[in-house]
């Protein structure tokens, strides 16, 4: 269980060695996954009565039965990135399985068994590419050994493909399933004896592989959080404090109880302030036999609230104050050179400010979870990104042991960071205990928009100074936004080192004098993380400013970026920072900031998009680039003015270097979707607070991209790379909005300093 940022988890916490040490305990737990009493063995001493029922499971992720059914455990949550396909296909490829016959089973939340399951921070592939290869290769090694012993041939003359071991010399072949009774007698090979396949031998990795669930989704059979149905299950809809930190003074529930189908009214004790990241808000739950009755009952509640200290909160006023604060000196977080000296001799300083609003995640599936508390234990089904955190939070809320909570993970109808937080899961557990029956808690869209963990509003001021030869000699960046940590700890009034490492202090350009400063701000609501987190506002400000600097220097923006990235080299920011450089939880030595790789994606996107060509008067291109989550991305947006005078995005070009590309189709789809997601952030979405309450209620007032205005064509160029793989869920988002703004400027002559802006 981890209360704060998910993506700064030190790698050593995910110890792959423990994953590969099967134990009797693992075997027993795994057997619970099997349906119909199938014997699922992980320990090789565990054979069936005659050996025929034995399943070969050399690690927690993989098992093969005697009928050659290969089952692979997906231990990360599927929220649309394709991870439920991409990690199992790595195992299958190394194993030599017949992918069309592989069965994928979703793991329950269990860190001891599966390692880290926190599906966040774009690190599933980064963290598990090697362990998954090992998992598949270990099994293949044993199967090859078993076959070669059976045939009395050399092991290296055999190979595994399509679920069979072949020996070309003797033209012998055998199904994996038929080798099960042999491999059960074998020791698991030492890790160093297991040889991974050369990359060229892969048949799945590096290819377009359709997602496992595509047919279930297209036929309506896929099971999301709210689709779980249990006997005698009740439905709860909750009226939560409209202001964060509010408490119930009194409730008149007579009208609610009069609604046909309403059975019980239950108070949920809220955390108060600080609100925390893993606790429910205070609220009154209406529990009914069906969702409609629960909604009507909830609407009929009369609640008197003590709204607490945030009841006067006005986000427009706070943003104004935040912006004002950036005029003063702040807390210096990065310092290079002698900026005060340097600016004395500069000939021009460009000073710009950038304001971004709160954003809500607005997953189309609003939060929902099912819990069944009985006999001191709780079984939960939830669309959670972080099953382990949810499991711990449920245990803590119910006062039971973590081991007494079973956390089943359904498909997630979108996540984007919202469903990392276990508050809604905890609600279901508390209400099931109170009700004495299974309960599904169902959030409405209004609940979702009113009670999110929002992407923080932000104000930034950048001063860029040029010398007489139009060289950029000083960069002074002020940033202020309420920290995620402030949701749990009000004393945290500056952005954390981790948040600054998301596109701010890792400013990569070769400018001799740099100062990055932060200012104080408080959290008046629950702040969380949204797809790419602080990269959203930092990338916007920096890339928009870089475009202005290029213009002031009379240099093309692409050439400007390439020039300022300088020689191919590895950057290390540590020596200039007052604080730590998180580097997304990885060491900078292992995952350096390579200017050469960034330059390569910039050159690639410029070439593919035809940057520099004459587009005529009705079209323009804008450029931005951003390394985030260790993936290098360059983006060109093409805008076009139609006959009706409206501006539309005709094309988006992305070049991406994410190291080894595992599932190329899902990489493209993340970029396609990332552009649409970011288009909404750039042009239509904003959450505001008045009197402590959110002013947007549904998709009429909180707008996200719709098909007519969505970018029309999205081209994704994946760099061929043998570097370590890095994530692609979040990296498409940061460069899109500034590339769009820079394109709109080219077309209209108008710069955009506030999001969202209408195009």
């Amino acid at each position, binding site marked *: 269980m981890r209360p704060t940022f998910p993506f700064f988890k030190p790698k050593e916490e995910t110890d792959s060695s423990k994953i590969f040490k099967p134990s009797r305990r693992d075997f027993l737990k795994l057997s619970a996954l099997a349906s119909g009493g199938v014997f699922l063995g992980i320990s090789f001493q565990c054979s069936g009565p005659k050996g025929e029922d034995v399943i070969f499971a050399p690690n927690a992720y993989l098992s093969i039965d005697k009928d050659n059914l290969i089952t692979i455990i997906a231990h990360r949550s599927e929220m649309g990135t394709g991870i439920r396909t991409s990690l199992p296909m790595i195992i299958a490829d190394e194993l030599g399985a017949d992918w069309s016959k592989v069965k994928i089973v979703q793991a329950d939340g269990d860190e001891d068994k599966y390692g880290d399951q926190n599906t966040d921070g774009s690190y599933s592939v980064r963290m598990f590419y090697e362990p998954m290869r090992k998992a598949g290769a270990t099994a293949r090694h044993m199967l090859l050994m078993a076959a070669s012993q059976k045939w009395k041939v050399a092991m290296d003359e055999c190979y595994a493909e399509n679920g069979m071991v072949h020996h070309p010399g003797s033209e012998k072949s055998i199904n994996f399933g038929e080798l099960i009774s042999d491999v059960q007698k074998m020791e698991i090979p030492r890790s160093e004896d297991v040889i991974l396949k050369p990359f060229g031998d892969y048949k799945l990795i590096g290819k377009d592989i359709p*997602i496992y669930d*595509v047919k279930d989704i297209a036929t*309506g059979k896929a099971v*999301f959080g709210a689709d779980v149905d249990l006997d005698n299950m009740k439905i709860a809809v909750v009226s939560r404090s409209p202001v964060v930190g509010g408490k119930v003074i009194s409730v008149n529930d007579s009208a609610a109880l009069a609604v046909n189908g309403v059975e019980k009214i239950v108070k949920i004790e809220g955390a108060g302030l600080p609100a925390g990241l893993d606790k429910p808000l205070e609220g009154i739950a209406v529990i009914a036999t069906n969702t*409609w009755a629960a909604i009507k009952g909830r609407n009929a509640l009369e609640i008197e609230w003590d709204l607490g200290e945030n009841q006067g909160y006005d986000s427009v006023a706070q943003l104004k104050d935040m912006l004002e604060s950036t005029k003063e000196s702040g807390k210096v977080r990065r310092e290079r050179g002698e900026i005060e000296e340097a600016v004395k001799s500069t000939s021009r300083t460009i000073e710009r400010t950038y304001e971004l609003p709160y954003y809500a995640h607005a997953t*189309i599936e609003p939060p929902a979870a099912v819990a069944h508390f009985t006999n001191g234990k709780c079984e939960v089904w939830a669309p959670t990104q972080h099953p382990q955190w949810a499991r711990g939070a449920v245990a803590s809320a119910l006062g039971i042991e973590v081991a007494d909570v079973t956390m089943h993970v359904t498909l997630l109808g979108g996540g984007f960071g919202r469903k990392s937080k276990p508050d809604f899961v905890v609600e279901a557990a508390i209400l099931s205990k109170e009700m004495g029956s299974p309960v599904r808690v169902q959030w409405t869209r209004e609940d979702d928009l009113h009670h999110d963990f929002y992407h923080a509003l932000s104000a930034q001021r950048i001063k860029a100074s040029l010398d007489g030869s139009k060289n950029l000699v000083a960069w002074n960046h002020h940033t202020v936004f309420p920290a995620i940590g402030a949701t749990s700890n009000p004393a945290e009034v500056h952005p954390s080192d981790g948040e600054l490492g998301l596109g701010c202090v890792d400013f990569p350009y070769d400018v001799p004098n740099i100062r990055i400063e932060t200012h104080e701000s408080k959290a008046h609501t629950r702040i969380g993380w949204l797809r790419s987190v602080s990269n959203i506002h930092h990338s916007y400000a920096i890339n928009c400013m870089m475009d202005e600097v290029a213009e002031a220097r009379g240099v093309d923006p692409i050439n400007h970026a390439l020039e300022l990235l300088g020689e191919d080299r590895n950057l290390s920011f540590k020596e200039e920072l007052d604080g730590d450089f998180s580097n997304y939880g990885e060491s900078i030595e292992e995952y350096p900031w390579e200017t050469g790789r960034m330059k390569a994606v910039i050159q690639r996107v410029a070439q593919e998009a035809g940057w520099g060509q004459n587009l005529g008067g009705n079209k323009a291109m804008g450029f931005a680039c951003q390394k985030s989550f260790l993936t290098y991305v360059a983006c060109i947006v093409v805008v076009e003015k139609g006959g009706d005078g409206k501006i539309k995005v005709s094309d988006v070009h992305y070049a991406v270097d994410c190291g080894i590309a595992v599932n190329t189709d899902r990489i493209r789809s993340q970029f396609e979707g990332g552009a649409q997601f970011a288009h909404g952030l750039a042009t239509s979405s904003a959450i505001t607070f008045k009197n402590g309450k959110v002013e947007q209620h549904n998709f009429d007032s909180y707008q996200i991209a719709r098909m*007519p205005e969505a970018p029309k064509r999205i081209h994704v160029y994946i760099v061929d790379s043998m570097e370590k793989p890095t994530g692609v869920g979040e990296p498409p988002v940061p460069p899109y909005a500034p590339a769009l703004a820079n394109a709109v400027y080219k077309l209209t002559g108008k710069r955009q300093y506030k999001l969202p802006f209408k195009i």
Partner: protein
Amino acid sequence: MENYTLKINGESHQVTAEEDMPLLWALRDLLGMKGTKFGCGQALCGACTVLVGGEAMRSCSLPVSAVGDQEVVTIEGLSAKGDHPLQSAWIEHVVPQCGYCQSGQIMNAAALLQRNPNPSDQEIESVMAGNLCRCGTYNRIKEAIKTASSKL
């Protein structure tokens, strides 16, 4: 509470419900048909789209009492084997990401193709404007509708 006989996917179903209960909740909670999704409750996102009398309707905002004897088709009944041209095209283009909005997208597209088997890009965009996808699968949805259209 009233009794209603609903014609859904070619079969009659009896439900006992308040007259203002939206069809969505009758489908999901009373009949256990979970393919139709709840997204906004205000006919603003399209996740709950079903066909009622051949027209795409937002089931979250259609009271069960207003359905009458009109034929209701949900994602479960779009085709017997899950091979409606739209479903096949959805699979061919690997349209879904998280998948939650896709039942509604497919049902809305089905109504479009029934009315106009060969829609232009602009018609697709305008008809699909009310179906939100937070993952941003819009361009693949459009391509899949065109592929399905070419096979009708």
